[in-house]
């Protein structure tokens, strides 16, 4: 992990929707192979932040640098090709297409064609525990299964940086545990930013945590320090962290 050459860096990143300032002067740095948790109450601007990192939104001002590439305002497909993958908060899948086809569509960009791609597809199916439903049409699956399809699809593209927006939402405890396990596994070779509300989940995976509040970074510290902080408790009052 090198702090000198950041994998991702944003400077004064700002996004306004009319009068709403969804992201306000966000300065954020992520190192190579780092795992970062992003937390904050609803409306704090976490999803907006992810959308600017992946070209779904063009920032009002500020810059985003991925390794040496300046990517703010670039098209989503260009950023994806540089190696950023995302599981969005609202599931983004291909409804009338099979699970296997999802994985293939993602894997064929990352892998050479031929038998290697077949292997890669089978491997991802296995890893995301989708082998049993590989031929099912994704539109007919449950919400939790669709989450896994999307996670599998992101994995199959083999990105350098993976963004997961509320990956455990709608999952059973067992599946949540499996998600945490996969995140740690991915983190052995890749960097991740994970948005989650579930503090138990955060505790399972987190090293460093960044708190968003009203579009700004409120604090950034080790998991334990963040959970002990009074301001964080205030923001989350009545939420799971209080428990």
């Amino acid at each position, binding site marked *: 992990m090198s702090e000198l050459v950041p994998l991702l860096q944003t400077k004064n990143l700002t996004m306004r929707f009319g009068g709403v300032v969804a992201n306000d002067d966000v300065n954020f740095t992520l190192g190579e192979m780092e795992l970062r948790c992003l937390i904050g109450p609803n409306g704090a601007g976490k999803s907006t932040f992810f959308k600017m990192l992946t070209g779904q939104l063009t920032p009002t001002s500020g810059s985003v640098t991925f390794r040496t590439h300046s990517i703010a305002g670039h098209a989503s497909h260009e950023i994806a090709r540089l190696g950023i993958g995302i599981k969005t908060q609202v599931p983004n899948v*291909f409804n009338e297409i*099979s699970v296997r086809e999802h994985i293939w569509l993602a894997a064929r960009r990352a892998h050479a064609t031929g038998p290697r791609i077949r292997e890669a597809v089978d491997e991802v199916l296995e890893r995301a525990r989708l082998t049993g439903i590989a031929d099912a049409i994704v539109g007919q699956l449950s919400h939790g299964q669709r989450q896994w399809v999307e996670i599998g699809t992101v994995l199959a593209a083999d990105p350098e940086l993976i963004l997961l927006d509320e990956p455990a939402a709608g999952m059973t405890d067992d599946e949540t545990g499996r998600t945490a396990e996969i995140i740690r596994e991915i983190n052995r070779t890749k960097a991740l930013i994970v948005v989650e509300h579930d503090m138990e989940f955060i505790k399972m995976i987190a090293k460093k945590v960044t708190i968003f509040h009203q579009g700004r970074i409120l604090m950034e510290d080790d998991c334990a320090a963040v959970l002990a902080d009074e301001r964080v408790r205030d923001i989350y009052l009545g939420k799971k962290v209080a428990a």
Partner: protein
Amino acid sequence: MTRNHKLIAQALAVLVAIVVVALAPGYLDLFTVMQLTLFASMAVLSLSLAFIWGFGGILSFGQSAFFGLGGYAYAVAVGNFGDSTPAIVLAILVPALFAGALGYFVFYGRISDVYLGVITLTVTLILFNVVNSTAGNEYTIGSVRLGGFNGIPAIQTFNMPFDPSDILYPEHAWWVTGGLLIVVYLGLRLLIGSTFGRIAIAVRENETRAALLGYDPRLVKLGVFVIGGAIAGLAGALYVNWGAFVGPTIFSLSLSAEIIIWITVGSLGTLVGPILGCVLIQYLVSQIGTQQTFNSNLVLGVILVGFVLLLPKGIVLSIQQAFEHLAYWWGQRKSTLPSSSLDVPAMEGEKG
């Protein structure tokens, strides 16, 4: 139906089609063969929209614009060259280029899907008006007068490739038209199964997800749109070859609307369906034309409403679904094992 069943059914259908195309002139009178030639050229047009709408998710209300451009390109080229071979090529190229320019403007200009419909519709109207007002002698391309609302009469029909002295008989023209219908069908089948086709279906399903995986939805849609324009142009050449005439009414909104009805009736998302829907409705309209009781537009409207309300998936998918239910029921009867609904082989993005 499983994948294999579907493949066998498709191969059988193609085989039957080849036999029908080959043998028809031996069994049918000339009038019927001519009628079939018209239906087949329209079926090619139907396939062009079936592809871009059903597999690319692009609903164009102006597919007849490319059809008309193909027809006029053929007429002008064959009049100048005296040989139908390069004229057919131009009938494909000109609308393809036009679709490229229009598609670039629409897809790269981030114009929403609703406006795509409006724009394609407007372009058709504009083309009609432009061509309609080319009556004067000054509107001549090479040796061919465009003729305004009178159109271009007595157009030279297809000849043997590179041999203008050998003009095809109507039976041969039927073989060419019916044969090209089969070729276009097979070509689209292969295209849909290819990497490009699979990506196009993904873009149809979810542009955002496709882009987040590194695919450029604009480029993919442009490709689909151009291919659709090229096929519609070929259909235009086949149509002009059938009638030896082209006039500005070829750029008609009612034809554009009719293609949408053919596809809706036959089943959107399939290729066989739009061919079937096209031929059935054309036959019906030609039958209505011989009597005076019902207006054909009224009948078309009733058919469309009827299908949308009662059989929204269209003929082919409804039949396919019935077969699937039957097979499922049969399987249930044979085995007492409860089978999960996920084990039922479901339909893929590529359906029929």
